[in-house]
């Protein structure tokens, strides 16, 4: 068991008002090693809050999260950055690359922060770059790249630390169809190599690349379906059906 989420609850209170928003209620699921999970939901469903808690960027109101047996919601504020650096990888919707750094240095960023030896950095990128087809891009600067290229670089950055868990927040939302497919296929490849992935998305197509899809609405996990031996297309259809049935109809 890699990730264990127990009865997670997140309540937002607006200041000067008694109004209470329940972003998450009794969220409870487990993730095995080498899984590829998609969490699907509309905007406002609580999926981003869930991701933020898993990313240790937010603390839950109640409940617990264990990563490899470590209770991550109890980690001290001062150790959080270090924890993220060593255990988690992030891929964002808008890539979040620094324009002031070259592509290569962007990928090195987490390693530099973790004080990894420069030779080791070079070794790791030599393995990673061909896999992600970014060898030609390394000396360029982010603003010279297309959206798909940028996302591949961002994925390289998230993988270079060999994280236990890769978290992706709508990774294809800013990309066109072809680039989206490229990235999602890449995710599948990475997953086949043994990387555990957790992706948040509202796109049925994106979710169809995962092995398991969790549906979230109003802060609750409603339903989950497994891919099994289905093709992407079949799985995508199932997901759409589930969406209409479970989430769409009020």
């Amino acid at each position, binding site marked *: 068991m890699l990730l264990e989420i127990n009865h997670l609850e997140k309540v937002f209170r607006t200041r000067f008002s008694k109004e209470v928003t329940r972003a998450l209620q009794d969220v409870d699921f487990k993730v095995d090693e080498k899984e590829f999970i998609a969490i699907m939901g509309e905007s406002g469903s609580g999926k981003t809050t869930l991701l933020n808690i898993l990313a240790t960027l937010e603390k839950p109101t109640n409940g617990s999260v264990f990563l490899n047996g470590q209770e991550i919601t109890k980690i001290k504020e*001062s150790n959080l950055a*270090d924890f993220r650096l060593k255990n988690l990888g992030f891929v964002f919707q808008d890539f979040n690359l620094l324009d*002031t750094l070259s592509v290569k240095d962007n990928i090195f960023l987490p390693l530099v922060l973790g004080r990894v030896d420069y030779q080791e950095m070079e070794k790791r990128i030599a393995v990673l770059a061909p896999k992600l087809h970014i060898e030609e891009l390394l000396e360029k600067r982010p603003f010279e790249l297309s959206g798909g290229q940028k996302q591949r670089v961002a994925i390289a950055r998230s993988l270079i630390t060999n994280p236990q868990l890769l978290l992706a927040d709508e990774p294809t939302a800013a990309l066109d169809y072809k680039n989206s497919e490229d990235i999602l296929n890449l995710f599948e490849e990475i997953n086949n190599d043994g990387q555990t992935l957790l992706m948040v998305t509202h796109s049925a197509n994106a979710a169809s690349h995962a092995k398991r899809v969790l549906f979230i609405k109003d802060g609750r996990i409603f339903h989950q379906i497994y891919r099994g031996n289905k093709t992407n297309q079949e799985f995508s259809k199932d997901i759409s059906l589930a969406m209409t049935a479970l989430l769409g109809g009020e």
Partner: protein
Amino acid sequence: MLYAKLAWSNLKKSFNIFAPFLLASIVLFILDCSTLLILYSPVSDDMQYSNSVLGLAIIVLMIFTIIMEIYSYNFLLKQRSKEFGLYNILGMNRKQVSLVSTIELILSFIGIIILGSVLSAIFSQFFYLIFVNLLHYDKLILSLSPVAFILNTVAFAVIFVLLEIVNLITIHRSSPLSLFKRQEKGEKEPRGNVIFALLSLICLGSGYYLSVTSEKIAALVVIYRFFIAVVLVIIGTYLFYISFMAWYLKHRRKNKKYFYTPEHFVTTSQMIFRMKQNAVGLANITLLAIMSFVAIATTTSLYVSGQNQLDTLFPEQTQITLTNYINSNDDSKTLTEGDFTDVLKRQVSDKLGKSNDDFLTYQSDLAAFSVPTGKSMKLTDNDVKHPNVNAFGSVYMTTQDDFRALGNDTPILKDGQIAFYKQKGDSQLEELTLFDKTFKNVKNFKSATFPEFGNSYNPCVIIFSSDSELTEVENLFKAHSMPMQENLIAYGDLTKNEVNQISKDMVLPDDDIHQEVQGIVETKENFRNEMYAITGGFLFTGFLLGLSFLLGAALIIYYKQLTEGIEDKKSYKILQEVGMSKEAVKKAINSQTLLVFFMPLGVAIVHFIFALTMLKQMLLLFSVTGSSMIIVSGITILGLIIIYFLIYKFTSRTYYKAIER
């Protein structure tokens, strides 16, 4: 009417965007207006020197105002480009957008004129008090001249017409799309050209060299050198920020061990881009800071050293100078010290019922030729025809008895022997030939008292053994057509009445020896007043300009912090998400702002330290000597660092706020 309403509500709603521009405008208005008010007040009729110094100040201030206003307004326009784009998309054409922004400008102008005038009326009283205090002047109320207000309003109207032109050009050039486009178009790395980087060091180095090597050069030549050095350093400073820093940072980045550490990775890579965007801004801040240093330090030195100068010039309250001009082509003849003391007795002592012994008297002949340097020097006819301006100075001549009477420990001189003292540089003189006669120098004074040094250009004094030998030299000079002044100086403590009594007759020729012996009476008090009128005016102007420059620097810094804060916000968010701790982010921000902020100050201080040698030499023209300059400079720099630091504290809040927003 709609447009006026829109303009008015814009001003109200976006007040925090307009505020820096309005504040800068009002402060500049007050500075200009107050200076004009003092210039047009009755006091300046009495103060001829200060008047012209203030006139210069107002010209510099106006130029400065124009530059700062355009800079500040440009920044305002940049911030508002999105708003203009929105109007454009909502269906207003360029003409209408221009109209709204013109009305805004007019409203700002009216506000600035009204508020500025009222505040000027208040603050000018305060400035005036400082002014008259420095000048030791007795009329303490400033009458407000309407001319000053009108002139300043006209000047600002002209400036705002310039701003309107800037405004129209900006709006005309923009298209709705470009206005809306995100600023993040990805900038190329600065080149960091090695040649320019080298050139910057060469420029700075040669500027510094010119200053450091000017110690033994005559003040007039130093002024000429100073301008070359200033130009070199200005070019060097711009190139330093534009090329050298980029080159240096990129060079650092190549060092993998240095670069790939959390401490340097983010800061260095961001600084490379900072340097590109801000090179000119940083150079401007540096130059404003150094201008501020120079203006305040030199004028303060001038003012402070006035007292020293006064004490050197006036061992006692009253100075009486009897002068006999000697030229070759008239029948003037040289006088002995005895002749002079006779005149003093008849014209002064007898009239006041005193004796010559009541005065400290000494002979002090003055000629102007090359001040001896090295071990020997020969004065020849050629020097009379073609004086060497570079080594030129005031050469005083006196006798050993007189020199001793001034309180100088002088060895006994025999005939043919002299002693020598010069203000500038260590004298090595062993032999001095004045036309046909050669003297052995037996002593080079390291320091000595000679009152005239207090207001002479590059002075030195030759001490002869006796009156007869001095007369011989006088005759030699006359024979070789070398003009000289024979002087007898007498110091005494006279009352006001006594001074009045003798000064009526003093300028008359003394009939008994058929010579045009002229007498001048000068009192310490009178001299002090005149001096304060000059140096006080300088000091006031120095502070006025110095503080204005610092204000300009502060404004640029404020805008820089604001823009950078907005730009950096995203970077720091990304860094935190990737796994940089909050403390590390804060540290990186801190080291970056500190560097960007204090680099100009550091560079300015280095410039200033190198400039000190030159400034000291030039101030010798105004008889500012000794260490007062260094002490004053030290205090000035310290004071300005504190002000600068306060600006930093204040503006870095803007930066953090922008980042946290």
